[in-house]
């Protein structure tokens, strides 16, 4: 009788421990998932770091089918995130095209990453502002995620080594743009 009671006691204590361990594992799992999901990368935190690699398909109007960042090493790269529905993007569209024309012979490449946009309207936008530098859709929003953009427009300036030298949130101004490009072009690899 006495042994039975003690055994019952031990069994209940074991059950309690099992439940507690399960509960704890579950809680830790939950916290990990929440942290992973809530962890958001800020684009400006990438300054000074290696730019995330990507290969992006280009809109049909371009001769090349896709563009790969890895192949542009040794050149200054300007990555501009834009969308046809973005009113602020209109303000810098013509300027970016002009800068591209002014600097393309000095080893500067411009890339337009079209964010959450519909192709029909994107092509109209590009025609409207005469965009001729390589531009394409961000399939699956992967590039935007990797660069941690907070919205559009957002522009990343990469040095010749593929490091992010500067991040501009919002429309870029001419003086700032040309000043940055002059500095990056002057830098060695």
């Amino acid at each position, binding site marked *: 009788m*006495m042994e039975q009671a003690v055994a019952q006691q031990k069994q209940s*204590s074991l059950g309690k421990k099992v439940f507690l361990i399960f509960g704890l594992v*579950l809680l830790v799992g939950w916290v990990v998932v929440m942290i992973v999901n809530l962890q958001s990368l800020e684009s400006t935190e990438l300054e000074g770091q290696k730019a995330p690699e990507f290969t992006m398909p280009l809109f049909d109007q371009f001769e090349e089918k896709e563009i790969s960042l890895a192949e542009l090493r040794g050149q200054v790269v300007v990555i501009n995130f834009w969308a046809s529905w973005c009113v602020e993007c209109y303000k810098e569209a013509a300027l970016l095209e002009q800068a591209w024309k002014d600097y393309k012979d000095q080893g500067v490449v411009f890339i337009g990453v079209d964010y959450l946009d*519909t192709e029909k309207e994107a092509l109209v936008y590009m025609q409207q502002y005469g965009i001729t530098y390589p531009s394409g859709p961000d399939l699956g929003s992967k590039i935007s995620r990797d660069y941690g953009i907070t919205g559009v427009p957002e522009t990343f300036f990469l040095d010749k080594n593929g490091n992010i030298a500067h991040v501009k949130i919002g429309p870029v101004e001419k003086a700032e743009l040309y000043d940055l490009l002059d500095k990056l072009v002057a830098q060695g690899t």
Partner: protein
Amino acid sequence: MLVKRILIFSSLIIIFLFSVQATLAQEPDYDRVNQIAKNMNCPTCVGVNLADCRTQTCEQWRGQIQDLLAQGYSDQEVLDYFANQYGTQVLLEPPKEGSTLLLWVLPVAALLIGGGWVVYLLRRWKKPVPAAAGGPAAAPAADDYLKQVEKDLEAH
């Protein structure tokens, strides 16, 4: 002369009816567009359904749905297109895989374990440990003492 006029007029009516039919066939109805849009999120707002959102982005996206339907896409194919183009986060119910799967599994597991714990507690509550055992808190501490008492009793 009259017959000729009637023939021309009839032909015009027939052409008009055919063109109206062709237009209607190409224009998917807005209810279907909205029905699909209800299964998607506004890409630039938080917690707003694509069907209800009035931003330019969502206007364009609904237009895109309409274009895809006109091209013969099924409802599911439209959703797949958007998920592929912009990421699964645009879907109201993203596919249950990766960390999304954990978000589905963990609450269910928590509910099961929590429920099991409650059932376990209730059962214990209904079946109290016999008084002779000295209660749950006392038993482990009095373990050696009880063994000794049992031995003494057997000896007598």
